[in-house]
């Protein structure tokens, strides 16, 4: 890493539960929208217009500002053939790029393997949250999974400080690569050292972080702050990931109030995050992807909406060519897919664009095939 050019970094924010595309990106001049959403609708005069056809949810004000600055690409109608309406299965599909069979390798795990084939940096991939999302899991590819950045490391369950320091000292010696104890023991030793090393580097790296930005208190905001801390520490991390709390976007009931606060939180968190990395002069080599496993049913169910298909994804950053990509799926009855928006944009094309045009990787073995790319990364 002696080159002056900074390595490109990808951050992913997963919006779990199925975010409602219709009320995120509102087709506010389409009468079919109002016909289908007698109860769960955003009134026309509240929408933040993007053009004459669509506008942002009113709670997306700060995100709209980023859009107006040309930093937000909106990928419309994103999905995959024969959309699966199960949260878990659909999320698996987004994670593994395999709609037909159950697969276990995650696309970002593969990307991390390609970005750091010799495993020189134990922090090439970092997840913020407990447990690894399948998207980052590939056997043999180390990824740090950080439940709490402030309290991440080995033997953190030992509370007394002096006692923990003693234990850590012993731990470091116990796990220092042993010779001749057998392949599995050696592997465990190496893995223990990797874990400890990663934790030490992270702790030291983020220790000096300070920022004028004050993030919100939600776990999503705090994890995005952690991502900013890791990114601005310059530890060579290339892929960072976090997940908005478990299925929070699953708005089957009382959607209007729930979805408003979700949108407000996403919008504020994203703009805080952008402000933060901008302040640290670290916004030029990072893009942020926001995705969800599916959109929601076109017709509301009284107070909420059920699981649907085609949704929207956002890609945000200095290197992004802002604007609308793909087509807004038709709301005409005969063009719906079982009552849901039909996808017109395969998510694997979105991934391929990020992998090839941003991270500089060959996307085919990662997303399992060739898919049409979108032109939202500015070459420069």
């Amino acid at each position: 890493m002696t080159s002056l050019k900074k390595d490109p970094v990808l951050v992913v924010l997963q919006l779990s539960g199925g975010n409602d595309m219709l009320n995120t990106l509102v087709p506010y001049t389409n009468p079919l929208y109002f016909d289908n959403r007698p109860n769960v609708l955003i009134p026309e005069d509240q929408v933040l217009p993007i053009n004459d056809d669509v506008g942002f949810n009113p709670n997306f004000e700060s995100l709209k500002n980023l859009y107006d600055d040309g930093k937000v690409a909106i990928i419309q109608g994103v999905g995959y053939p024969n959309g699966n309406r199960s949260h878990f299965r659909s999320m698996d599909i987004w994670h593994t790029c395999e709609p037909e069979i159950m697969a276990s390798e995650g696309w970002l795990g593969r990307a991390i393997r390609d970005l750091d084939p010799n495993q020189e940096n134990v922090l090439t991939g970092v997840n913020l949250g407990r447990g690894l999302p399948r998207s980052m899991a590939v056997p043999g590819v180390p990824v740090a999974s950080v439940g709490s950045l402030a309290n991440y490391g080995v033997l953190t369950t030992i509370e007394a400080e002096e006692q923990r320091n003693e234990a850590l000292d012993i731990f470091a010696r116990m796990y220092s690569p042993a010779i001749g104890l057998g392949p599995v023991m050696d592997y465990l030793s190496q893995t223990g050292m990797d874990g400890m090393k990663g934790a030490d580097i992270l702790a030291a790296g983020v220790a000096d972080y300070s920022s004028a930005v004050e993030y919100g208190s939600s776990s999503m905001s705090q994890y995005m702050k952690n991502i900013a801390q890791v990114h601005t520490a310059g530890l060579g991390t290339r892929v960072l990931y976090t997940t908005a709390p478990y299925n929070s976007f699953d708005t089957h009931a009382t959607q209007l109030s729930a979805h408003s606060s979700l949108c407000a939180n996403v919008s504020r968190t994203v703009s805080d995050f952008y402000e933060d990395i901008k302040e640290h002069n670290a916004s030029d080599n990072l893009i942020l992807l926001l995705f969800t496993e599916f959109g929601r049913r076109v017709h509301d169910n009284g107070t909420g909406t059920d699981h649907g298909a085609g949704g929207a994804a956002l890609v945000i950053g200095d290197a992004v060519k802002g604007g609308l990509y793909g087509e807004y799926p038709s709301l005409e009855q005969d063009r719906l897919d079982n009552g849901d928006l039909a996808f017109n944009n395969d998510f694997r094309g979105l991934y391929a664009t990020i992998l090839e045009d941003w991270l500089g990787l060959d996307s085919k073995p990662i997303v399992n095939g060739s898919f049409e790319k979108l032109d939202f990364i500015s070459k420069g």
Partner: protein
Amino acid sequence: MLNEDVKLMAHLMRRAGFGASYEEIERRAAVGYEATVEELLHPEGQPDLEMDVMHRYMHGWRDMHGIMANQGYWTYRMVNSSRQLEEKICAFWHGIFCVGDSKCQKPKQIQIQLDNFRAKGLGNFAILLLDLAKDPAMIYYLDNQLSHKDAVNENWGRELLELFSMGVGMDGAPNYTEDDVKNCARAFTGWTISNAIPRYPYGFYDSEFLYNEFDHDDGEKTFLGETGNFNGEDIIEIIAKQPSTARFVSRHLCNFFVADEPQVPAWQNTPPMHPELITELEREYYRSGYEIRSMLRVLFNSDVFKNSRFAKVKSPAELVASTLRLTGTFSGPAPKMYEPVMEIRYMGQDLLNPPTVEGWHTGAEWVDSGTLLERINFAAGQMGATESPGVRAIIDRLGSEGIEISPDRLLDGCLEMLGDYKLNDETRLMLINHAESTGASSGGTDAFAQQVGQMLQLIVSTQEYQFT
């Protein structure tokens, strides 16, 4: 110093169950090894867990609709059931006959399947396969309700052969052809379920197996060299008598109970680690008429098993449940009961939701830098709680040995109490030095309790504690 009977019993209880406290191991060693094997092989001879109190506190455990309730209930059984092998064999089959909540979205239906593994998992393998073929969760998971006379879906038919009974091949040669897969799948057309599984929009209901004779292909089929108008039962009968099935089941038993083998897809071309034991198990498979219980009796009484101590990496469920059995802290309703349950998931084993139909990759593949930290931090956190009944019992027991306990004895005593763990020489030396540096203390004092607690924390942080 532990006698050999106690050491061997600690090993048996770790493998045939989820470990045991030192008291239980001593008690069982006094009863004898073979008698304990027999007791384990007949879990129905032990009382089942009394659930009334838990049901009053854990509301979700009555209707079992949520995945967390199901995972919590199973963890509770692993830790507390006196029928230890019943839960172990349930975990064994769950890791092979995989069904995942990510697709089924109805964990209760999977729990019904697990209950069948509990009831019949030590019984006849052919009956187990037949039950599996009729299991609503499995039918839905592998799409057999979409397999019709005129439009065969091969998903179940293929996995039945590849993953559930014969395996793709052995001794370097394939076990069946693509035609066998097709004909197997044809024989199971019409094997469907009465209600589609996902719960929306009509609420919760159980699904039932349904045989639709009008959707069954009753034409002639050739399967593994035999020809007839086979139905699913005939196919399972043919499968059960194949040498490849005897091998596959034997090898799975060795992989799970004796020593980590390579991952299953490698078995066609990699010979078993203990061929002599495999041969014995294959022989017992036929002799007993496919009885898993009989095979396990041979296995547990074999020298290969007795000498395979710490030859396996603990699964997350084993690590969590066995640690909780040592600390004695998961035995009744308590706040934050789901925390240790979630740990199993964080360590990479989302029970009732294996990543794919191939199940979890086991052995060293359980461990990566993220999951290793989870394992170490969890175990050290549990062992540091010196007020836990199990940790307290260890402190009291060691404290009763004398007024001053030497550093060597402190270490060895802790290793024994945890179940005869062995450490490599360098680690031993380091831990003895550590005990010396903190100074000797007398049994019964707080300082001694602290010292034991710290020693236990360090032991469960070692590489060695990751093994079973």
